[in-house]
């Protein structure tokens, strides 16, 4: 359980990091908080030739509210969780962050690291999908933005090219009619979720609008429950019958894989329950 040898670079700017990525190409791996990459390196499941440590890049640690919430990729999960800006502007992100590992993991783990790692069961990709967040990706040619729906491509796979760096995530400031919630089921506190559900909607005259429901742990990436979203549009989510049907529709199209933690059939069942629960929390917790 010791990592294989590697070369180590510690850039202090995004430009420098991108230069290194271009130079080393696929041989390099970006080291953010290291809470997923280093376990894989210790077990030699990952043996990168070069590590590009982005922990000394100050410009990645910016968290600001300026026409939206912008979280730099290098912001620690614990910093984001305890940020008054996050708690005031988009508290559901803090709700999701509470489920990320444990305090010792969140003290090092970064918001961008979790998103770029793209574990299908992870909380941050799921909440960002539900919030229709936009990722900022920087390469030699400059910055581009990628909506969450196009960002997650599969297990541990994102739209970030080998010579690009995820530099931040942007979430629109929710209006007063916005409601949201995040719930999950895991074997133990701090474990990856068996299933997680994130809900975001607007409540206008008792009717749900702009509904987004994202699920984790049920596919190779976080997925939107399209049929449940369409069903809820214009309906009253305070009504338990409506929530029941939304949960049923959300689970209906899923075909989750089985593993040692839970069979796919269980994950499917739990998906329906969690969608109901997230909807209930979103509209009854107001």
């Amino acid at each position, binding site marked *: 359980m010791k990592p294989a040898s590697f070369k180590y670079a510690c850039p202090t700017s995004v430009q420098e990091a991108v*230069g290194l990525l271009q130079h080393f190409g696929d041989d390099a791996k970006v080291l953010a908080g290291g809470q997923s990459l280093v376990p894989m390196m210790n077990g030699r499941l990952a043996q990168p030739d070069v590590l590009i440590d982005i922990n000394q890049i100050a410009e990645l640690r910016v968290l600001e509210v300026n026409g939206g919430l912008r979280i730099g990729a290098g912001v620690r999960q614990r910093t984001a969780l305890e940020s008054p800006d996050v708690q005031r502007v988009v508290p559901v992100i803090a709700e999701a962050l509470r489920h990320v590992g444990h*305090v010792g993991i969140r003290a090092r783990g970064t918001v961008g690291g979790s998103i770029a790692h793209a574990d299908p069961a992870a909380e941050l990709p799921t909440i960002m999908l539900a919030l229709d967040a936009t990722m900022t990706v920087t390469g030699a040619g400059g910055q581009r933005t990628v909506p969450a729906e196009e960002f997650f491509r599969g297990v541990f796979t994102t739209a970030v090219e080998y010579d690009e760096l995820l530099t931040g995530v942007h979430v629109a400031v929710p209006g007063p009619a916005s409601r949201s919630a995040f719930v999950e089921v895991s074997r133990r506190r701090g474990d990856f979720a068996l299933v997680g559900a994130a809900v975001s909607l607007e409540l206008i005259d008792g009717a749900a609008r702009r509904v987004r429901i994202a699920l984790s742990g049920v596919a190779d990436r976080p997925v939107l429950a399209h049929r449940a979203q369409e069903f809820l549009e214009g309906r009253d989510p305070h009504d338990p019958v409506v929530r029941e049907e939304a949960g049923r529709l959300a689970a209906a199209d899923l075909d989750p894989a089985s593993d040692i933690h839970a069979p796919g059939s269980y994950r499917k069942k739990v998906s329906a329950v969690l969608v109901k629960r997230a909807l209930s929390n979103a509209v009854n917790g107001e």
Partner: protein
Amino acid sequence: MSTVSENLQPVVEDEITIEVTINGSPRSGRAEPRLLLADFLRQQLGLTGTHLGCEHGVCGACTVLIDGEPVRSCLMFAIQARGADITTVEGLDDDGELHPVQQAFHAKHGLQCGFCTPGMVLTCKALLDHNPTPSEPEIRDFLSGNICRCTGYVGIVESVKEAAAAGRGVSPAAPASTTTER
């Protein structure tokens, strides 16, 4: 070290000297990039109080405080800790006098085999530094990343409560009439 190009930082390939502050004192040792902080502490600096359990970030035994934050030293490379202020279990006592958290673990049977204890007491210290009056759910949540296979956690939670109370100058276990003795 080698330089990729003129405007890029040098890339470290071989052993370099790592300078850190440990338990208030400057220390240095040699490390190649792949050396984990936990192994650096144990092998290069002889600080074997930091225990390695799982070596992949699950058990919490190797927790140290870096700039006051509890961190798994098996998930960080020594080279990343350059310039950091690190607290290990060796730094908790005051001239042989146990730290209040250590005293509480002793008094309330917060350990049996002791393997997880360095990580437990450091995490507990981080909790109390951050929140001197934690509720039981807060204690259990904060310590949820530290695994103990002996105690069943009851003694550990009691220890944290005791340490918190000691920090406030009261003893939760003692009858009301003796609470002023401390």
